[in-house]
């Protein structure tokens, strides 16, 4: 949309073809970019392409030639109305007010919360917000800005740049974040983590993406009572739950993201509720770095990772009992697949899960594993996380013939018009038996987090780290 806005402002008439259910999103983004009356035509999600073109070709050309209406000729200023105090009344009345919903028509056809994630919130009274602000040394009226230079998917961000919350491109102050933290049920000592999450701009999932995973690394996790143990990504721990919940609430309030209007995750997932956990640094094998150290911070520094989970999640691929049988005595189905029948461990259990990793889609993975399973990998011979990443990457190679059969590669290869990064050749010039690393051009996209309970399970999520999009934020910068 910024591009279309730029052309219109430069005097070049445009017409946009978009899918019908994206209409509200186009309107909202057009307004945020200063061209609220942009002309767009709906494409069909289901109609055969030639039939759809029959239908839309005349309206498209009409969009370029039909004279402007008086409304389309208008210029002016737009500012969303806001004041510091939103509501005055009793606490009961306030509870009703903050639970307000609005009806969102197709593709939702249901009420959507106006100020929250849909659940009741803790009412952000002036007193509660004042108390919350004691959790940081930053002033209430300070704008949320980047605390360090970094790369983002939208370009380079310099230290001090104001953070724009998408999709409405709004900004926020420390007090605004504290208000949202109160609403999510946070305690003042958790505010620095919430401010670091706010520094991410609270990215939201697109039409297909599943949501966000938030992981805290460093000493603050223990200080504020976060869980990195059994059930760490599920219900029960107030710190994990409240901190995680700030993401969808801030997306709604600071970014203006409305499900079905300008936030269009077709199905969405539990991750979009703000799944948050801490890393178990004590559970790391010797020589394995925590997320903070892997990201260039020190062991005693605290960071938060906000990881978009764009594709899917895989759970346990084996029975925990089967896993124990593999490692203790080399029995059961896992041992049969790994061809180590009767041989006690340690065995590389990742080998068992490998066939599933790139069966349906490409890309690096985030892998959460319990400490015992990390220690088995260490004893097997992986003396660092990097060694595991390298092994995984090498195992991801598949023939171009098979690689072409995955869905996302059309997207990442620019419809095969681009250059294959390792050979430097055009994709279309490569033979069918050319070996392609399905995990990406190198091993840097993988991310291992150690945490969870004692039962032998691992969970893998698509996404991984992106070299051109830092998703790690210092918490200490916001203390």
């Amino acid at each position, binding site marked *: 949309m910024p*591009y279309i806005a730029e*052309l219109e*402002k430069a*005097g*070049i*008439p*445009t017409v*946009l*073809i*978009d899918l019908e259910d994206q209409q509200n999103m*186009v309107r909202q983004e057009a*307004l945020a970019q*200063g*061209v*609220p*009356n942009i002309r767009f035509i709906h*494409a069909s999600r289901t109609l055969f*392409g*030639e039939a*759809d073109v029959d239908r839309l*070709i005349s309206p498209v*050309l009409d969009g*370029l*030639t039909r004279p*402007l209406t008086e409304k389309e*000729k208008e*210029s*002016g200023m*737009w500012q969303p109305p*806001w004041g510091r*105090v*939103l*509501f*005055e*009344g*009793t*606490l*009961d009345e*306030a509870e009703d*007010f*903050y639970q307000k919903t609005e009806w969102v028509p197709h593709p939702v056809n249901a009420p959507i919360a106006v*100020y929250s994630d849909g659940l009741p919130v803790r*009412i952000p*009274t*002036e007193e509660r*917000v004042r108390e919350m602000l004691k959790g940081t040394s930053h002033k209430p009226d300070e704008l949320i800005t980047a605390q360090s230079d970094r790369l983002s998917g939208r370009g380079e961000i310099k230290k001090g740049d104001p953070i724009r*919350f998408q999709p409405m*491109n*709004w*900004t926020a102050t420390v007090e*605004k974040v504290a*208000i949202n933290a109160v*609403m999510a049920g946070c305690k003042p000592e958790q505010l620095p983590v919430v401010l670091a999450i706010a520094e991410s701009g609270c990215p939201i999932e697109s*039409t297909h993406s599943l949501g966000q995973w938030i992981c805290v690394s460093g000493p603050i996790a223990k200080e504020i009572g976060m869980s990195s143990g059994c059930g760490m990504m599920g219900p029960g721990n107030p710190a994990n739950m409240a901190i995680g919940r700030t993401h969808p609430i801030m997306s709604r*309030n*600071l970014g203006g993201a409305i499900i079905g209007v300008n936030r269009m995750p077709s199905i969405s997932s539990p991750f979009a509720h703000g799944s948050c956990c801490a890393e178990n640094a004590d559970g790391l094998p010797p020589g394995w770095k925590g997320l903070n150290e892997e990201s260039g911070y020190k062991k005693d520094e605290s960071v938060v990772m906000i990881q978009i989970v764009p594709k899917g999640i895989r759970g346990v691929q084996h029975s925990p009992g089967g896993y124990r049988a593999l490692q203790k005595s080399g029995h059961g189905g896992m041992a049969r697949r790994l061809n180590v029948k009767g041989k006690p461990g340690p065995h590389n259990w990742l080998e068992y899960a490998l066939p599933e990793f790139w069966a349906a889609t490409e890309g690096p993975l985030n892998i959460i594993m319990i400490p015992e399973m990390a220690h088995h990998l260490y004893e097997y011979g992986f003396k660092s996380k990097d060694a595991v990443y390298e092994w995984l990457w090498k195992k991801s190679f598949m023939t171009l013939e098979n690689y072409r059969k995955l869905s996302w590669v*059309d*997207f990442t290869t*620019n*419809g095969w018009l681009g250059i294959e990064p390792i050979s430097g050749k055009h994709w279309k010039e490569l033979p069918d038996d050319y070996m392609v690393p399905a995990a990406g051009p190198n091993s840097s996209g993988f991310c291992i987090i150690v945490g969870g309970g004692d039962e032998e399970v691992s969970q893998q999520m698509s996404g991984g780290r992106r070299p051109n999009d830092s998703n790690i934020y210092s918490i200490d910068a916001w203390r």
Partner: protein
Amino acid sequence: MVDKVKCLNPIGIGMPVKTYPLAPRLEKIDGKEIWLSITGEPDITIPLEKRLKNDYPKVNWKVKRKYDLDPIPLTDEEMKTADGLIQAVCW
């Protein structure tokens, strides 16, 4: 008497946005340089490109082709001579 409370506003701060009129439309398309900026959805964009070129041969059609979401922008030089642009398909 029930105590009243002041509750603060959680909504982000929208900087004022200057809004602009749309660019003037074309009186006719014949003889004009119109760009088709393709961003994926080949099921639509391939027949669209074919139809535009076949049905409107007097237009100087130009194409920027990409598979993913972000269009390839016109260069400053191209913007000097561009008369219009069709963006297809945003998704």
